[in-house]
Every structure is written in C-alpha cells, then in structure tokens.
C-alpha cells in the first residue's frame, strides 16, 4: 500500500535532505525546530491491464460522447493529435502510453475501415520532434505505417496554409488551430497528464494552435492571474483555453479526448525493493539502506568524474518505469475532471500554512530540455514557473518571502534547440528582468523574426517567442517573492536572471534573513517525484 505524501517537521536527528541540483545532487541540513519538508506520495498502484483499460475507456466514454467505434466510419477524416516530447518527464520507458492508446484507437479505426488518418504531434511552439522521439512516442509500427506517406508529422504553427481561423471568444481571443484538425470529422487527442496543468481544452486550444491564438493566454497578465496555473479552476490560463474550447465546439470541431495519468514511479519502484540505481531518489532519507547509501555515494563519485557532456547524456538517457494509473476518454470536460481526481490522488499533499523561506532542488530536466541543455532561462522557468506553481490554495511561500533553489545554472545553451533563448538572455535580460516591460518592448521582435521562424519550421528550434513564455511562466512568482537565491549556480548567469548566487545553503539562508528576518520558517519542497502542495 503506497504511503501518502506528508509534512515532516525537521528536528535535530533529521538526516541531511536530498536536493536535486541539475545533473547532480546535494545533501543539505536544514535548521531544526523551524524547518519542515513536504514529501511526495509513494507511487500509486498502476493498472494491471493497461490495454484493457484503454479499450474499456474507448468503448464506454465519459460525458455525452458516443463510444469511439460509433464515431468511426469509412470515408471519414480522422486526426489523432498527441502530446509532444515535453511529456512525460523524464521520458517513459517503452512502450510509451501514447503508443498504446494510439494503437488502440487506430485498431478501432482499422476495424471501421477508416482510410484518411493523420497523426499530429501537438507541439504548438515547441521544437519539432525528431524521428527517434516520434518513434518513442507513437511506437515503431505506427511510425512506419504513417510517417513515410507524410500522415504523421509535427504541427507547424507558422504554416499559414495549414491553419484555420475559427473566430474569437466572447473576450475577443482569436482561435486558430491546425486546419487538418479543424476540418476532420473527428479529432482524437491523446494526452499524458503528468501534472494538473495538462489536458482539458488546453490540449487542442494550445497544442494545435498558433502564435496568433496563443498570445491571448500566454502573456504576463494572464499568467499573473493564474493562481496557480496548476489549479485549473483558479487559472486564468485555463479559463481562456476553456473559452477557446467553446469556440472550437461552436465551429464544429469534434474532439474525442483521451487522458492518461501516470504514477510517481520516476526513478524505479523495483529499486525500492532492493534493485536499480536510482531508487533512493524517491525514498525518504532516513529509510535509505546501506545499499542505497553506497549507491548514492558511488553515483556522486561517478558523476564527479564525468565530463558535463557525458553527465548530461547519462541523465537524459534515463527512462522512467511509470505505471499507468488511469485512462479516461470521451467528452473533454467530463474526462478532464476525472483525470484531475487521479492526478490529485497522486500529487496532492496537505500543508498547513505558508512559509517564509521555500527551498527546492531543481532536477536536470524540465519540459523544454529533453535531450538538451537546461539553460538559465529554463532554470528560472522550472523553479519559478513549474515548481512554485505546484500549489493549490495559496503559494507555499508567503508574499515577500524567499525562494532558494539549488542548480548549477551554467551559462550554456543548446544552439539548435534554443537559438532565441541565447538572444533573449544576451539582449533582453541584460536590459531588464521585468516581465511586463519585456513583453511590451521585445516580444513582437522575437515572435516575428524570420530566422527563428525558419529554424522552428525546418530545424528543431523552439519558436522565437518561446523564451518569453518561459519568463511569463514565472511572472506570478517574480511578483510574489521578495528574493530568489540559487545555490551553486554560475554567479554571472544567476545575476543575469536577476537572482542572487550563493555558494552554500548556509549562505543562502543567511542572505534570506535580510528579507524575512532572523529565524524564519523554512519549507523544503521535496520534488521530484512530483508533488503538489494543498496549502491551507
């Protein structure tokens, strides 16, 4: 029986705590008596028969949707959209759940005699997926069946001929999505809902849309009013997407939504039972066995010997043995509400009251550096965007409080994946770190740069405007926090971000006392595996 997440009060005999720190780890002591640690729940029991569950979900959908076989008929246009390489994190051990769902859908389509099928990686303004990544996501059989004829491809948000403008919401937000998806008789969207933010109407309205449409919710005002964007009912980002969902419905886009949830088995449950190299990362420190400790020490020593390049490669090659905890299919809202229950069951941890100082260890990966480099902008986005927003109710840290993160934050960028990030870092952040000012002064120039557009469409680059979204993602946290410190980061890069570098946790806590006074309360956010704080 997996144990739920919980809050530990740190006392004198609490062992040092694990902090992720890029391609490495730190063990840090927090002061006793005023510190606490929020631990994630252990992995929920996975479904035994995933294929059976998929089939059952397709045959008995939720909400007012007919079973999938009834929606399929010969001569129809069927489009299957699926989440891109940004999900799940880290990537899932084969077979990826997307491939299993897509095969089940296609098998029904084959039975119904559907000929015209397109599969689209719904990557919005993310980088195009490579063949290997697509094969991993949809499986070799599906790839080989559809890619050679051009029926399996990456969404292109900059191809004017392949976008359909469907009108505006009651608040004037323009809705523009993939023409193929809009003109299909049925759009099946296959989600992996790794966190509560994913899925719902956001899948289609964001994943298959264009800059023209995205800018209405990917902006500073919206994201500052998404408290948090992980809490769909209190997220302006989601409200906007839901309004767009209504426009899609009104325009006759028929969406059959499939959402899947995974458990927290990020580093290997079998490792918990005594094998595997990374199991200690999802154990509580006082439960580390001699073997875990030996493995950790050996890993630290080994990592220290690797070049940064090899260290990165080693980490990026990790494939998580997630178990699938649920599969929902049918009408978007009904599906998504059920999905949220499953996500919350795994992630939510009740926490009482806010804290003065929030600490978190940033791991080696975020949604935008799969097979890539976690550059400083992504460090900001992971910490102040994703982790900060993993709350329901109120932020874990009080307004004006201090956030301390551990990450090496190297001044390094992937030249192919993140070209506009380099310019953003060199030009925009050198000038200002204020999201509103950045948005007003620079966004248009980057969004419309022909060169970025070219790289996005033909190479594997994130769209020119993408680094701005990373910054907006952290806008709410930037406004909320009194100080941000990165322990162990490259001082130049950290300062460029507008944060303060510290060499040790002790220094960082000392620096925090300037902002929150002496003897502040401290909370450590022990993530990943993912947890979401339910703060009362």
């Amino acid at each position, binding site marked *: 029986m997996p144990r739920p997440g919980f809050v530990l009060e740190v006392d004198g005999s609490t062992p040092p705590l694990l902090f992720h720190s890029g391609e490495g780890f730190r063990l840090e002591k927090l002061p006793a008596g005023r510190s606490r640690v929020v631990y994630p729940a252990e992995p929920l029991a996975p479904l035994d028969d995933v294929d059976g569950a998929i089939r059952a979900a397709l045959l008995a959908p939720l909400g007012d949707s007919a079973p999938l076989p009834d929606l399929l008929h010969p001569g129809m246009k069927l489009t299957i959209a699926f989440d891109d390489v940004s999900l799940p994190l880290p990537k899932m051990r084969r077979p990826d759940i997307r491939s299993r769902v897509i095969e089940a859908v296609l098998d029904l389509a084959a039975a119904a005699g559907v000929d015209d099928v397109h599969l689209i990686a719904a990557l919005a303004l993310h980088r195009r997926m490579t063949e290997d990544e697509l094969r991993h996501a949809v499986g070799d059989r599906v790839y080989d069946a559809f890619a050679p004829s051009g029926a399996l491809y990456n969404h292109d948000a900059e191809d004017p001929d392949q976008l359909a403008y469907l009108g505006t919401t009651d608040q004037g937000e323009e809705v523009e999505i993939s023409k193929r998806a809009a003109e299909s008789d049925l759009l099946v969207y296959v989600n992996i809902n790794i966190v509560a933010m994913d899925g719902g109407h956001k899948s289609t309205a964001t994943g298959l849309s264009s800059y023209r449409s995205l800018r209405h919710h990917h902006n500073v005002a919206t994201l500052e009013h998404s408290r948090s964007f992980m809490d769909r009912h209190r997220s302006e980002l989601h409200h906007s997407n839901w309004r767009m969902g209504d426009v899609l419905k009104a325009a006759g886009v028929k969406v059959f939504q499939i959402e899947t949830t995974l458990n927290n088995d990020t580093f290997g449950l079998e490792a918990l039972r005594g094998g595997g190299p990374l199991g200690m990362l999802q154990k509580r420190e006082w439960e580390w066995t001699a073997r875990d400790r030996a493995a950790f020490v050996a890993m630290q020593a080994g990592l220290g010997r690797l070049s940064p390049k090899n260290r990165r490669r080693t980490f990026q090659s990790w494939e998580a043995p997630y178990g699938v905890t649920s599969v929902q299919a049918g009408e978007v809202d009904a599906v998504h509400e059920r999905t949220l229950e499953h996500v919350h069951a795994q992630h939510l941890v009740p926490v009482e009251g806010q804290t003065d100082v929030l600490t978190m260890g940033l791991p080696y990966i975020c949604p935008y550096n799969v097979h890539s480099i976690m550059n400083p902008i992504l460090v900001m986005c992971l910490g102040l965007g994703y982790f900060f927003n993993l709350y329901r109710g109120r932020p874990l840290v009080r307004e004006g409080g201090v956030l301390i993160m551990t990450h090496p934050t190297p001044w390094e960028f992937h030249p192919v994946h993140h070209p506009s990030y380099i*310019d953003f870092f060199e030009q925009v952040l050198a000038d200002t770190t204020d999201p509103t000012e950045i948005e007003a002064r620079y966004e248009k120039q980057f969004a419309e*740069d*022909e*060169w970025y557009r070219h790289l996005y469409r033909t190479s594997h680059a994130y769209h020119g405007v993408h680094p701005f979204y990373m910054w907006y993602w952290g806008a709410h946290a930037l406004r909320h926090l009194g100080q941000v410190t990165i322990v162990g980061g490259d001082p130049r890069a950290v300062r460029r971000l507008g944060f303060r570098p510290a060499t040790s946790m002790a220094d960082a806590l000392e620096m925090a006392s300037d902002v929150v006074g002496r003897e502040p309360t401290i909370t450590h956010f022990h993530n990943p595996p993912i947890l979401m704080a339910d703060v009362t």
Partner: protein
Amino acid sequence: MVASRVVPGRGASVGPLRLADVDPPEPPGDGWVRLRPRLAGICGSDLATIDGRSSRYFEPIVSFPFTPGHEVVGDLDDGGRAVLVPVLACAARGVEPPCRQCATGAINRCERVAFGHLEPGLQTGFCADTGGGWSTSLVAHESQLVAVPDGLSDEAAVMVEPTACAVHAAGVVGAVDTVAVLGAGTLGLLTIAALRAGTGAGVGTVVATAKHPVQRRWAVELGADRVVAPGELARAVRAATGSWRLGAQLTGGFDVVVDCVGSAESIAQGLSVVAPGGTVVLVGMPGHTALDLTPLWHRETSVRGCYAYDRADFEAALDLVAAADLGRLVSATYPLDRYPEAVEHAAAAGQRDAVKIAFDLRGERRR
C-alpha cells in the same frame, strides 16, 4: 632633459624602451617652436611598438632613436598651451611645394613622410629629430599646433589627438543606418562618441563590443545603443537586422563595421557581420594577418583603412572633447620614472578599470 626613448636593437623581451637623460632636440628650422609636454597619453600604437609587435612596414617611416608620445598637450614659450598635431607632413618637413595630398589638406595621407629636412617619421613620437611627448621637451612646427582654450583642462586636451582619429573615422563612416564598433578601448569609445556627435551626420544604430565592465559603462554613456561581449556580436547584429545565418556568416549585416581592435579575429568578425556591399573600416592599427577574402569577394564588401586626421578633424575633436567632457576618460597618470608601471597599466587598461593612461610631466624636473 628626461625622455623615454625607444632604442633599436634591444630584444622585445626586455623591451627597447628605457628612460634616459638626453639633450633636448633642436628646432630644425624656421617656424619650429619648443613645446614642453604637460600630459602625454599612451596609445595602442605605442604599446605595439614597445612590445615589438609593429609591422616591418614602419621601418622606412620611423627613425631611431626616438622619444615616443604623440598625444600631447604642452606649454609653449609664449605661455599658452597647445595640443600637438603630430603628423609630420610636407609643411613641417619643409617640402615645397607640398605633395598632392597635403595640398588638399589630407595631411594624414602625406606622400613625403620620410623626406624633407627631417629624419623619417610619420609622426612626432616616431621621429629622431623632433623628440616626443614622453619627455619634458620637444620641438614642433607651427603647423602642428592647435591652441587650447583656457577653460579646457589638460586631461581633456590630451584626449584631443585620439578624438581627432575618431572624428576622422566617423567622417569615413558617413551617414548610415547601422554601425558596429569593435572594441571599446579608447579609440572604440571615442569613435562611439564621434558617431553620436553628429560629425558622422546621423548614424542610426550603434552596437559596440566590449570585454570589460568599465568599457561597457562608457560605451553606453557615450551613446552606443547596445553593448555586447565580442562573442555575442553576430547574434546581436543578426537580431537587429533580422538576417539569417549561414554557418558563421550572416546573410545580412550592418552597413559599416568600425574595427578599433585591428586583430585578425576582429577583421574576420567584421567581415562576417557586415552587410553585402558594406564596409569594414580599420581604425585600430592592424598588422600582418591572414584573412579569407572569399566573403569579401562574394558579398562585394570593402575593407578600408582609416588613419589619423587632418586639421579640420582636430578642430572638431576639440569641440567634441569639450562638449562630451572626454577628459573623464583619462583614468590614471604616472610620472616618467614609473614608466614600466604606466605601460603595464595601459596594456591592461580594460581589466584594470581604466581607459586612457597618460604620463604627467607637469612635475618633472626641467633641465
């Protein structure tokens, strides 16, 4: 007289420069007067000479032993102060009639710099007959003197000569939309100031490269729209011009690149970020370099030199120095007997938070 003298035949390791008591130079003819330096700057070309990095090209147009120092403000016997126009052109050399270039006023292009009644020497400070600024006394031809107004400090006045170079460069650049200035040492910073002073008749965007924080600060202060690290220039130019990339080469680029560094790397970088049909202006003294000229050929770009100034540039520079208060760029002064420290400081100016280093000769013994 005390003077730092460059003596040939010494190894570059110990340096050909030494401090010595020598006889003051005698005026070589009519129209020559004595100038007693008050401040004398250390220029990049001086450092190259001291380090033995200068091109062999200079051999016929300098004469040894010489006293360096061509950025000079000094006292005249009549009690006034003057800055030196160090170019030793036809007028100073007693060449009559003047060469074609001097006849038009382009004294920097004088065709007789090794002839006439003086020893060879393109400028005061490289000529055996005239003495130089790093001393207590030199001789100058009347045509070489520009009076310093009373309100102008010595520090400002010593900046006039390098500023004249920058003014000249700005004139070469002309009125264009986009200019990149490579290097933010004295010359780079002054070029930025000159481009912004309107002497360049309205330049649109100026992007500069700078290695050191002090250079960044000054570059922004003097009017650069954006200051970047040298490695960031290509991206900055690309973003500013919306151009595309082909390997290291931008498809578009800036109209003019002013190279105030003069190294092989900076010239190559200039060629990679200059627009097709544009010009790379070499203001910093280049040396012997290997360059791939294919992009120059294919993109019809030009590389052109830009040396010194004429009298008009000097007049304009005097105004600019006063208007922009460029005396602030003099970061430190040294007495002559601490010349090794001075030279070292000048060679590492950016790292050590400095721009212009000068010798202060106002307190030297007069003998």
